[in-house]
């Protein structure tokens, strides 16, 4: 019993760390490839890691949330640790909130059985909306700048980034499927 519990903890940790690593990789990639899409130091008009957020919670659930939290804590830079932890918590929890909302609305099973492309698009929009809104509310509450400048670019960045990420994954799966058919 104890060894099964320990094994489960280890598996959760490994999966969370793997997700954190993937987040860090795509965050760095976004900084490098989409530098021209920067709105400010925290907001991009195209943010590829947003796709990692959605996939992490879709596939791994709450383990995904932990992984995103760890990854975001590593990549977020701020003056205080408390500020970073707050921002990371929003980054990690907002996709889960979007997923729970959409699963409730579409009455989807936890295994995502029957998930359609249109629903995926709705998840993307809701995910972008929740993250942008909560992030901007956090910036508003914790800074002297009392305006929502970054809401639209952040929302656009999250949605475009997620769609681009999903498209890349779909094309990769197509390529692998075609490669497998040709080479066996």
């Amino acid at each position, binding site marked *: 019993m104890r060894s099964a519990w320990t094994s489960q903890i280890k598996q959760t940790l490994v999966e969370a760390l793997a997700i954190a690593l993937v987040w860090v990789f795509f965050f760095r990639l976004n900084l490098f490839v989409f530098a021209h899409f920067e709105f400010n130091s925290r907001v991009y008009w195209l943010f590829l890691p947003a796709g990692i957020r959605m*996939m992490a919670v*879709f596939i791994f659930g709450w383990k995904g949330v932990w992984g995103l939290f760890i990854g975001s804590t590593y990549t977020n830079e701020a003056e205080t640790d408390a500020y970073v932890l707050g921002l990371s918590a929003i980054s990690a929890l907002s996709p889960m909130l979007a997923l729970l909302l959409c699963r409730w609305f579409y009455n989807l099973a936890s295994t*995502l059985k029957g*998930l359609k*492309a249109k629903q995926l698009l709705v998840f993307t929009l809701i995910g972008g909306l929740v993250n942008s809104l909560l992030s901007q509310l956090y910036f508003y509450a914790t800074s002297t700048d009392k305006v929502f400048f970054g809401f639209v670019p952040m929302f656009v960045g999250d949605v475009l980034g997620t769609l681009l990420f999903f*498209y890349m*994954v*779909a094309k990769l799966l*197509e390529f692998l499927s075609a490669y497998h058919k040709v080479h066996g």
Partner: protein
Amino acid sequence: MNTSTSISYIKFLNLANAMRELTEFPVLNPMEEYLLNHIALAWHANKNPSVSQTMHTSSEMSPSTVHRHLTTLRRKGFVRLNVDERDNRVKFISHTPLSQQYFSLLGQCLSDSVGT
């Protein structure tokens, strides 16, 4: 198959299927394809067949089967139903940008395959 890893894999499969739908043409089964071709012949003759006509002129399927496949074609975006202005009971089947794109692609594939 209830382990955490297998459930994650099932989720991944379901997610992957949904993502593929984002990048592909809606898939047609053979009967839907037959029906769409049947309707396309009428479009090519500059006719807009009605739902009722289509249901009763198709020799390969029963009227109820035709109606069911028409519903699916409509849902997938290949056909549009327009209500007759003179008689609300009559609905005409018209093409959509997707069906035009579909036949255009098929024509292109045919041209490519014969090297023209």
